[in-house]
Structure formats: structure tokens, C-alpha cells
């Protein structure tokens, strides 16, 4: 049986293909808009481009929103693929089935952040009469479109290289000795997690967008390892179960969606004000409030599991 015969993958790839076609149509129009756009002109060409701009905006708004929603479907599909990939017990096994999996996931995450940035710039552009960010917005989309094409190629490579006859490693991989970045110990990792978390809250309060941007990117990296290799143990209540995906499953009350969702949203809101400033020269610091709120949820939920476990057993894992 081929992985391409699974219902989830058929639906997923079909939607991806439709979105790519829509984006490609938009991209063709974007090229002509970028080449000839002159807002001050009242020529037939300019009016035609303005009409085209509305069409392109509508298509892109739809496709970009779909891509964001499709990411959640992709995660869900990975979970359900665990049922047909031998050896896989959760997404960890499916993602780790070949070396394209983690790269694909990382690219998807970057694209989601990129799409989010595009949606905000688009909103600012449409709210102004003169379309001041039109060219930058479309250049950004062009970059994202290249990313989407790369993502699609990676998806095909990834799905076609998932072995269905040879068992894959799943959480067994992560049962082995943890491979933490820079040789960190768990204690150091958790310490960094809380220090960075505190620093981000402070920087967000002080509205330091650039510093917050840097710390947020660092925090994303540290938080991934901290959640997987430390907090995850308390969620699973098992000292050797180091998996970022199992917490997304029903057995753990889907708590992973709250943890990862609030983390990614927090990071997104944390890095956006700086990026938006760079593109539009407009202040969007109010997003930092949401960033702090989301990261507080992440840290709070993670910490509650540790405290709860300690109160129940009197020991730390």
C-alpha cells in the first residue's frame, strides 16, 4: 500500500495543489501589478490593475487563511498516519520516518509565521487609501510562494519516502539518552526557559520590539527542547517518554494543542511588531501584550504539570 492512498494524504495534497494553482494565478497577476503599478495615474491600465489587485487580494486572503488552517490538518493527518506506518505510535514516528519530516515541519512553521506577517501587512495596506505597502506586500508573497513550492516538493519527497514495510523508530528514539542542544542538562534547559520567559515579559512590557524579536526566536528554540525533554515527562508522567507529539493525543486531553498553540502564537505575536516596523514603519506594539499573555499560558500550563506531579508523588522526574 502506498502512503498516497491514505484518505488524509489524498485530501491534504489535493487541497495543497488547489491552493498552489490559485497562488500561481495570483503570482502571474502580481508580476504585472508590480511592473506597472502607479497609484497616482488615472489611466485605463492603472484602473485595470486596481481591479486586478482586488481579485489577487481576495484569492490570496483565501489561500493564505486556508494554508494556516491546513497546517492543523497536517498535524492531525500525521497523527492518524501513525496507524498505518509500522512502528509509529504517534506523529514522532511518522515525522521521523525519513530525514525530510523535520525539515518539512520546520518549513511549514516558518511559512505559517510568514503568512501571518503577510495577512497583517495586507490588512494595513487595504486600510489605507493609497495602497502604500502594495509592492512590499507582493514581494513578501513572492518569497512565500517560492517557499510554498519548496514545501510541496518536500511534501512529495517526504510522503513518498515513508516506509510502510520497514518499522520506523517512534518514541523509542526519544526514550534513548536525550540529545540536548549544546550539551545542556535538563536543569540548565529549564533555567534558560524561565530566564528567557521572564526576559520576554520584561521586554514586551518595555515595548522593546527588536530585543523581544531576538529573545522570542531564542525562546522558541529553547522552549521546544524544554517542553519535549522536561515538561513532557510530567505530562506523560513517565521519566523516559520524551515526545513533542503524544501530548496532542486524546489520552493527554489534547493538552499539546494548548501548549504548542499558545507557544507558537506567543512567538508569532512577539516577533511580528519588529517585522511589521521594518516593512511598514508602523508601530504594532500592542501585539506584545498578546505575546506575553500567550507565553504566560504556555509557561503556566507546563509548570502546573510539574507542580501537580511533585504534589502527588513528592519527587521530581
Amino acid at each position: 500500500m502506498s502512503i498516497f492512498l491514505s484518505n488524509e494524504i489524498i485530501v491534504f495534497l489535493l487541497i495543497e495543489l488547489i491552493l498552489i494553482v490559485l497562488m500561481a494565478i495570483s503570482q502571474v497577476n502580481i508580476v504585472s501589478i508590480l511592473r506597472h503599478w502607479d497609484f497616482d495615474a488615472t489611466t485605463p491600465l492603472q484602473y485595470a490593475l486596481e481591479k486586478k489587485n482586488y481579485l489577487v487580494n481576495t484569492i490570496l486572503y483565501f489561500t493564505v487563511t486556508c494554508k494556516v488552517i491546513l497546517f492543523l490538518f497536517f498535524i492531525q493527518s500525521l497523527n492518524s498516519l501513525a496507524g498505518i506506518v509500522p512502528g509509529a505510535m504517534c506523529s514522532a514516528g511518522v515525522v521521523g520516518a525519513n530525514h525530510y519530516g523535520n525539515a518539512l515541519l520546520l518549513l511549514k512553521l516558518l511559512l505559517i509565521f510568514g503568512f501571518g506577517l503577510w495577512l497583517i501587512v495586507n490588512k494595513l495596506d487595504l486600510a489605507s487609501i493609497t495602497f502604500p505597502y502594495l509592492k512590499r506586500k507582493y514581494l513578501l508573497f513572492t518569497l512565500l510562494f517560492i517557499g510554498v513550492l519548496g514545501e510541496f516538493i518536500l511534501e512529495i519527497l517526504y510522503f513518498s519516502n515513508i516506509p510502510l514495510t520497514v518499522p520506523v523508530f517512534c518514541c523509542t528514539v526519544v526514550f534513548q539518552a536525550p540529545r540536548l542542544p549544546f550539551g545542556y542538562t535538563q536543569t540548565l534547559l529549564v533555567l534558560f526557559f524561565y530566564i528567557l520567559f521572564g526576559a520576554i515579559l520584561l521586554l514586551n512590557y518595555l515595548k522593546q520590539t527588536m530585543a523581544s524579536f531576538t529573545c522570542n526566536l531564542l525562546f522558541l528554540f529553547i522552549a521546544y527542547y524544554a517542553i519535549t525533554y522536561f515538561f513532557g515527562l510530567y505530562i506523560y508522567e513517565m521519566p523516559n517518554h520524551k515526545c513533542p507529539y503524544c501530548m496532542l493525543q486524546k489520552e493527554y486531553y489534547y493538552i499539546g494543542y494548548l501548549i504548542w498553540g499558545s507557544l507558537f502564537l506567543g512567538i508569532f505575536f512577539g516577533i511580528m511588531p519588529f517585522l511589521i516596523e521594518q516593512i511598514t514603519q508602523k508601530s504594532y506594539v500592542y501585539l506584545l501584550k498578546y505575546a506575553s499573555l500567550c507565553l504566560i499560558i504556555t509557561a503556566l500550563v507546563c509548570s502546573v504539570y510539574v507542580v501537580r506531579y511533585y504534589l502527588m508523588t513528592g519527587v521530581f522526574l
Partner: protein
Amino acid sequence: MSKIVIQNLNKLYNPNKPNAFYALKNINLSIEDGQIVILKGVSGSGKSTLLSLIGGLSKPSSGEILVNNQNIAKLPDIMSSAFRHQKIGFIFQSFNLLEGLSVYQNILAPLALTKLGKEAMHEKVNQAMQLANIEHKKDQNVGSLSGGERQRCAIARAVVMEPEIILADEPTANLDKENSFIFIEILKKFKLLHKTVIIATHDTLFDDLACIDRCVQMRDGELLE
């Protein structure tokens, strides 16, 4: 001071197709604040197209339409809608009332999109009904009104937002003589209220009326003034 300035305006329908045709050709027109202007011409001369462009209902193929010095042809759709809602009152030939609703509810409809309080809305609706002389029918369903009454309801709805500009497309086409004269009386009230009014019509009733500031003749999409 010019309320509306139209420069080099063209409207091409079905561009790049064999049946492409210019509904408006190089229109240049300036309308002062508080003027009542008649656009005259036979069917197909471009009167309604010009009205729809001034009202921001459609976009030109080229040229400018400046209302209060702002080129409304360049407004994004969402702002174009806001512009229409706040600045323009439309009176259509077929009235375009919301069937099934009462006169009061029809006139109230544009106010539903504002943040006005109930009392303020009620007051505005009453003022508009008085101006259009339709308050005695306020609770009646619009489906049961006569042609003249329906039009007065449409007029009240057009003015309830207190627009600066009123656009009327063949307002007397579906009216008998008596109701047409009532419309002219309302037109005189608009003049007193210093509204800028543009009427597209081929009705000779408007010829030589004292309240009319200007009559512009159109033919085959061109101004003959």
C-alpha cells in the same frame, strides 16, 4: 467651490471583447456645492452610467471623479461603501425598497449601520418622513403603497443620512403628473437645504424650472454642453 469635479472620464464596457463600447467618452464636468443639475439625454446616452460613477457604484476605465477634492474612483471598495453611505443619497427609478418592511423600517435601514442611539434614529427618520411628506404612512407595508408614495418613501430613505449629494435616476419615470409635481416640490426643499442634486432624466417636466441651476445634455456618452 466645486463639489464635484469630473476630468477626462471614460467608461468602457466589455474591454478587450468584440462588443466593447464606450458608455462615457472624455467627460469633463464641474458641479458647485448646492447646485441642482439635470443630466438630459435619450436612453443609452450615458446618464445612468455617469450617476453610478459619481455615486461610487462602479469604477471608471480612466479619468478622475473628485468629490470634495478626493478622487472617489481610487477608493478601495470598503471605503467606497462608506463614502456612499455617508455622502450620497440615491433615488432609483424603480425605488428599490425592501418589500415586506414598513415605510418606517425602510427609512430606518441606512441608520442601522450607524452608532446612533434609538432616540436619535427615531428623530432622523421622522425628519426624513416629514421632508418627503410620507409620515402618515409610516407603519404601512411598502408593498401596499401607490407609486408616488413608494417614491416618497425612497426619497426619505435617501435623505435620512443627511447626505451632501443626492443622485436621482429617472425619478419621475414611474409617476403620474400629480406625483411628479410633488417630487418637484421636494426638489425645492433640497435646494433650501443646500443639497447638491444630480438628476438623470429625459422628462421635459424639468425644463425651465426655477430651482434647476444647470441642464447638461448628453448624447452617445458625450457631454454636449
